[in-house]
């Protein structure tokens, strides 16, 4: 199938894509366009943070504590150094720290959603297609999962992971713990939606036909049912991405977030909120605005996607 696709000339396919309903709706929605550009811009900034950022906030040897609390654009009273967006409580350049923090937030968000999606789709497909005891067990596990606040899951995984990671990697470990914790508390909604859609799809004629032809269960699930449940999954995934980025911030507030030596946007906000009353507004303001811009654009994109993919709304 892939080979036949490739043999077709490229340009007409592109043109077909360009004039497809989805893209047409995208091109004609200023909100979708703007938020897409924003997401791309922020993602690019995050990916190329080491090239863009004037400082390396994750290298403690380059920090000077005396630079702490420098307001944006004004030189520090002791060191005379100046920073575009000011510095945080540790003397880190806030602009660089935000870029690097966004990198972590986006990485955690994407990975957690991917993890939740893979687990959720698999569980949902299997539960919906197989039915019976398999379904019961999977859906009851989902019930158990729903009960556990992500903070407890994070602590559990943290405790276990501590025993296995060598010292040098413990700093990075927190990131993977966050991904696991958020991903694990995220899969249930994918599973529920996919299971529901699978239940509907599996009784349709084309699936019955495929079964009669002798296709295996796995092939039917992946080739026939999966493509038909992808639209709601895509919508959930987009919204989940925004939620995952915010969940990471919340976990940080509860004390199980990214380490302060390698802060994510959420950790920066958690640190910054402590300086809201004391006049160092920039430590909270800039990271919060970045998070807002990021989550808002992703949410708006998800919104548009939901409407665009809903055939009944056209």
């Amino acid at each position, binding site marked *: 199938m892939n080979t036949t696709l490739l043999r077709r000339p490229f340009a007409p396919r592109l043109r077909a894509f360009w004039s497809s309903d989805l893209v047409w709706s995208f091109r004609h929605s200023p909100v979708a366009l703007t938020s897409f550009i924003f997401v791309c811009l922020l993602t690019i900034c995050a990916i190329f943070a080491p090239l863009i950022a004037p400082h390396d906030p994750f290298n403690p040897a380059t920090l000077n504590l005396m630079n702490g609390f420098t307001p944006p654009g004004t030189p520090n009273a002791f060191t005379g150094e100046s920073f575009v967006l000011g510095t945080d409580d*540790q003397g880190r350049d806030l602009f660089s720290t935000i870029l690097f923090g966004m990198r972590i937030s986006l990485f955690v968000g994407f990975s957690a959603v991917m993890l939740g999606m893979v687990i959720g789709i698999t569980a949902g497909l299997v539960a919906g297609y197989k039915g019976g005891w398999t379904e019961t067990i999977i859906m009851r596990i989902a019930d158990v999962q729903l009960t556990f606040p992500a903070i407890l899951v994070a602590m559990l995984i943290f405790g276990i992971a501590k025993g296995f990671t060598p*010292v*040098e990697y413990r*700093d990075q470990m927190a990131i993977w713990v966050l991904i696991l914790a958020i991903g694990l508390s995220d899969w249930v909604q994918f599973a529920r939606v996919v299971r529901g859609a699978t239940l509907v799809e599996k009784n349709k004629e084309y699936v019955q036909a495929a079964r009669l032809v002798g296709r295996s269960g796995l092939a039917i699930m992946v080739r026939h049912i999966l493509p038909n449940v992808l639209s709601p999954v895509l919508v959930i995934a987009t919204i989940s991405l925004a939620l995952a980025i915010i969940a990471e911030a919340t976990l940080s507030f509860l004390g199980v977030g990214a380490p*302060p*030596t390698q802060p994510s946007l959420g950790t920066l906000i958690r640190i910054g909120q*402590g300086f*809201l*009353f*004391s006049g160092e507004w920039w430590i909270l303001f800039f990271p919060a605005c970045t998070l807002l811009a990021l989550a808002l654009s992703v949410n708006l994109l998800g919104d548009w996607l939901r409407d665009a993919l809903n055939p009944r709304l056209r």
Partner: protein
Amino acid sequence: MKLHYLPLAAALLATTTLGVNAETLRWARAGDSLTLDPHAQNEGPTSSLAHQIMEPLIMRDMTGAVVPALATDWGPSASDPNVWVFNLRKGVTFHDGATFDSEDVKFSLDRAMTPDSDYKELLASVVEVRAPSSHVIEIVTDGPNPTMANNLTNMFIMDKSWAEANNATKVQDYEGGENTFAATHANGTGPYVLSSREPDVKTVLTINKNYWGIDEFPMQVTEVIYTPIQNKATRVAALLSGEVDFIQDVPVQDLARVGDTDGLEVRTAPQNRVIFFGMNQGDADLKNDNVDGANPLADLRVRQAMSLAINRDAIKQVVMRGQSQPAGMISPPFVNGWNAEMDSSSMTDVGKAKSLMAEAGYGDGFSITLNCPNDRYINDEAICQASVGMLAQIGIKVNLDAKPKAQHFPLINTLETDFYMLGWGVPTYDSEYIFNFLVHSKGEKYGSWNGTRFGQADIDVKIEALASETDLPKRNAMINEIWQVVQDEQVYIPIHHQVLNWGMASNVKTIVAPDDAAKFKYFELN
């Protein structure tokens, strides 16, 4: 001064619209008292609240000086050096009207020595408590104990007949599945009577009109409403918006804001707590570093280099906003044995530190994990974080592992950490307390908080001898010798002494107590 003050008070009256009269003090701090049972928890907020309702034989006033409470005078017995004699105050009654006498004291001290009591270690040297007459108490120790009285300042006295009537003769245990009456009720002799309490929510105290010291102390606060507020920002907001009159634990960054607000004031005082790092200097190899087959921290030069790398002034200025006092020894300044020379011995010299590292063979540095609490001391995590940057200057790559105290402190206890932060307060105001827990080699009775694996047999002998040395000049000389070794060996890296910050409405007049325990009978309002 007076002229300047009046408009402030007027402004304050205008902003507090909640209809509270001048004698009510609305008090908030981060945590609530855990229990009213006076012997179940030896912990700051718990004994702070207990001090309003109950009294010990002797107590510390707001300056930290030992003053009489239920005992009027005390001293070692003339006939037997192993006995302390306390003469009790006469004419004192409990809140329910029962008369206070030596039977209550004997009962309370015996109760505090039972296995479930959290105060039994402070009375470990006590063999027997005797009540020879209705207002005399004799405490017999297993040897001469010159500092015994200092251990009694939080040892609260309950009414024996009340405890017996309410089945509260035993300290709370957690096995039976039932709570003792004393955990939720209190009957003391103190200046305030408990009028209502919802744990973690609200506690109301009213003045005890029959208090023995009602004419002796200001006693201007007639009602106390105590609400714990955990979240820092919310606590400050409550003070700024006039919803409370008095908060403990003001975050250092908010001191300026509170101080600049009309009708609010901040008062600070050095706290009886020193913050420092401990290092595993005893093991042959470390679990939490990247050096195989050797322990870099065992080398004195490395420990000295680490201490030299820490810029305590920068930490004071930026992380603590000036609210700390750089330390050179792990003893708060109030403590017997503290000396100014040692406490100012810490220096910052990155160049010298680097050459010491090179001499020790670690010119390229090494990597190690620093375990740090993130909810125990003032800005604990930020101090550790700043230290990570400073140690990076001399090539030591530190992985910061900051965790809640419930996960951090067991690491020290079980010797799982090689490099950790710890803070220490000295309730007895004597160096012996520091040595017993932090310097003596770790064993069954001593050194329970010594996670450094440091231990020298001759030092251990000296520390143990302090308890029964009654010749004070000789004892002080011994203390000084032990300190000298601790300093020379760089057993710990002292960081600073904490400073306490209390924020309050301007009409509240009090000084800040070094043990962070507000005793409202000393408070004045105007």
